[in-house]
């Protein structure tokens, strides 16, 4: 496949287009929330995993009648998109037990949005041995539910093939991120977001083809050099829209790496492909997806505990030579908000400047944010 920039732009503009086409041809799509849903099982069932999101460009209309304003605005927006019928091309959806807000979405979608299939994957909050054993059983139930829905058995070989395909996708994504270590990076944060959201809207094999074409394109780009511009890491909650990142980049930042739900989180690990594929999936999704909803803990000391919880952020920041970190959290995200004093302490101990942003979804006051961002960039630049 020869890469053309319009390919990503077209998919990003109309993320459901390819699944609609495939669905009409007999291969349905299953929507899923969060980086904790093991998409390999959906792929192994012959269905297309489709990452669900809200809409940064549309105000909430119907969801006000179903979900209170004290709920996470991302979930309210996603529900609103669902209520509008925009996801009606999907066969159904999967909700993992991520956080209280996402759990609530399961009930709300179940009651209010037509579907042929729905499933809840109960993800333990701890990584204990019993939690791992439980999660394997829970994934077995998830697989069985898809087998019942499709009428097709999902054997170990199909699972292994799906794991291989998604691992390949993760390697490709990581390789493309790797180019962003260059200064200046050939791929902006906005481009990366659009690319990843497009990939998460396609069957894994088509997503991989797109990534390969994209990688070939940027590998061939001549290296340029320009003046020193602050290199920024973006951390926090999900933000699949480019409004905020574009503002950052328009203000003189280079967003070179992230720890975001729609960024590295679903791609920064590989699933082992051992004897029991479900056990491999359980291990990876419980241990390797870094989200504050999974309780990680080191009881030796508070500092050791911070290292266990946030060490991956400092490690990426160093690897990508960032000058500062912007921690962006959507309003009412309790799991992230409880971490703020700890993460501030940790990053400061690592000599990494950090700025915290808590915002509505969609972003409500971009110009106010721009002023803060510019001041931060001046400080770290």
């Amino acid at each position, binding site marked *: 496949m020869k890469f053309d920039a319009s390919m990503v732009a077209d998919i990003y503009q109309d993320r459901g287009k390819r699944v609609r086409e495939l669905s009409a041809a007999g291969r349905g799509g299953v929507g899923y929330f969060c980086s904790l849903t093991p998409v390999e099982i959906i792929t192994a069932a012959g269905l297309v995993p489709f990452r669900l999101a809200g809409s940064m460009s549309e105000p909430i209309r119907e969801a006000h*009648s179903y979900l209170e304003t*004290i709920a996470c605005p991302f979930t309210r927006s996603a529900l609103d998109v669902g209520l509008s019928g925009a996801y009606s091309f999907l066969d159904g959806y999967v909700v993992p037990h991520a956080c*209280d807000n996402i759990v609530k979405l399961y*009930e709300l979608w179940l*009651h209010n949005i037509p579907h*042929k299939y729905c499933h809840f994957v109960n993800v333990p909050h701890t990584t*204990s041995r*019993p939690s791992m054993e439980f999660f394997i059983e829970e994934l077995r139930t998830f697989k069985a539910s898809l087998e019942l829905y499709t009428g097709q058995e999902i054997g170990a070989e199909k699972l292994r093939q799906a794991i291989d395909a998604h691992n390949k996708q993760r390697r490709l994504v990581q390789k493309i991120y790797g180019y962003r270590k260059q200064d200046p990076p050939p791929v902006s944060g906005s481009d990366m977001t659009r690319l990843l959201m497009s990939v998460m809207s396609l069957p894994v094999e088509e997503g991989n083809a797109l990534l390969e074409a994209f990688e070939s394109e940027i590998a061939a780009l001549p290296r340029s050099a320009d003046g020193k511009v602050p290199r920024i890491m973006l951390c926090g909650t999900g933000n699949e829209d480019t409004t905020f990142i574009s503002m950052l980049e328009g203000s003189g930042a280079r967003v070179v790496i992230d720890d975001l739900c729609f960024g590295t989180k679903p791609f920064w690990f590989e699933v082992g492909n051992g004897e029991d594929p479900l056990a491999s999936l359980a291990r990876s999704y419980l241990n390797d997806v870094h989200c504050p909803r999974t*309780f990680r803990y080191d009881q030796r000391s508070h500092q050791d505990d911070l290292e266990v919880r946030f060490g991956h952020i400092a490690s990426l920041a160093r690897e990508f030579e960032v000058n500062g970190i912007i921690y962006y959290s959507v309003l009412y995200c309790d799991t992230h*908000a409880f971490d703020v004093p700890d993460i501030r302490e940790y990053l400061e101990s690592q000599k990494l400047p950090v700025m915290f942003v808590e915002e509505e979804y969609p972003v409500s006051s971009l110009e106010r944010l721009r002023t803060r961002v510019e001041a931060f960039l001046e400080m770290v630049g």
Partner: protein
Amino acid sequence: MEGPREKTTAEKSTETSKRVRMMIKDLAQRAHEARAAGDPIAYLFISSCYDDILRAMDITTVGTENYAGLCAAKMSAEQYLAKAESEGYQRHLCTYATCGLGFDATRRELGGMPPNAPDGGMEQPTVMLGTGMMICDPRYKWYQATRRYTDAPVHVLGLLNPPAYYTHVDIKDVRNYYIRYIVQELYELVDFLERHTGRRLNMDRLAEVVDLSEKTIKVWHDIYELRKAVPAPMPTEDALNAMVPGYFMMGTQLAYDFYRELYDEIKHRVDNKIGTIPDEKYRLLWALSLPPWYALVIFNYFESQGAVFPIEVVYHPPPPVDIPANVTNPIERMAWRFYDSMTRGHEKARKRSGDTNVEWFLDMIDEYKLDGVVFHQAMTCRTIHTGQLHQINIFKKYSDKPVLLLEGDIIDVRNYNQAATHDKVDAFIETLEAYKAKNS
């Protein structure tokens, strides 16, 4: 915003529930004595399945949510909330948690108990016991954050239950591995406690405690059966007091004796038709909503208008359990009790509304002969206060009883407006009157 009037607590109707305040003071005193003696102390949450183990290991407990509620009722919470905010915790976070974090931060900063802390303050814990449940993220995030202010280790107990409904799974197929998980997690907890407190669990002792808990739950549940009587013998404000022995002292003789005594008093009131108020015009359900602990007097305001709450959904006793006869291991019995209480309404919900809470409301409307439903939206609690609109939407498909939605918070009085609340109650009373007239 306008604050509440000076009086915060509600007048109680039953003599037994009036004793609870003294029991809470005794709980705090026990923690102070344990600290002085060097005995282990655990921070804990309610409804977390582990109480019987702590009781059997003779570990003193401090209910941190309960302490935040006490601070709110004593109008002492604001200083701790402000401290938590100054530490970087957002105002929208669970105020049980931010009150606790603010208290712990203050204690750490002062190097001792904050002056004038209600009941002498919360003692430094030896361990902090969080839970990883499907209903409340602060249950593991709060104590994780508290490590900033104490060196006590944290343990998070995995406690999961399946949802009421899937399209392609029979819930019966998942039960065994859910219960097995809870059992294994309880054993992990025992291991943690033995390592960090120096106490050993004696399984015979645990079996005695579990038996006592099950007996206590049965009596507690029987009281709620008596509460179906007209006029209402025990209103919600009394139940919010009377839940303390059940949620913070379960597995003790003290809790059992308390409910025996409460049962006798309620039975006497039922037999003699002694109600909460002289002229009971409207009977209301306090739906799935935590109360404004700084303004429980709101229940008396309803009563001044002839409306009483014979029953509530929150702080309900767990139902007596159907544990298979071959399950004799006390830890397994505890796991069954938890699983059973979390899934009991699922089958019924699947057959009708699809929502276990709404089924509960509908059942209570019939069984307790209720005229309307009141929700309270606690602004900082996303655990059970999001999805209330959804519950109301479903409820209205099956019942035309009037519904009121109040706004406030559990702990933070800044989110509460007494005048606006009274206005809403007044308008609701008129709605109830109109509804009754229309249907009489």
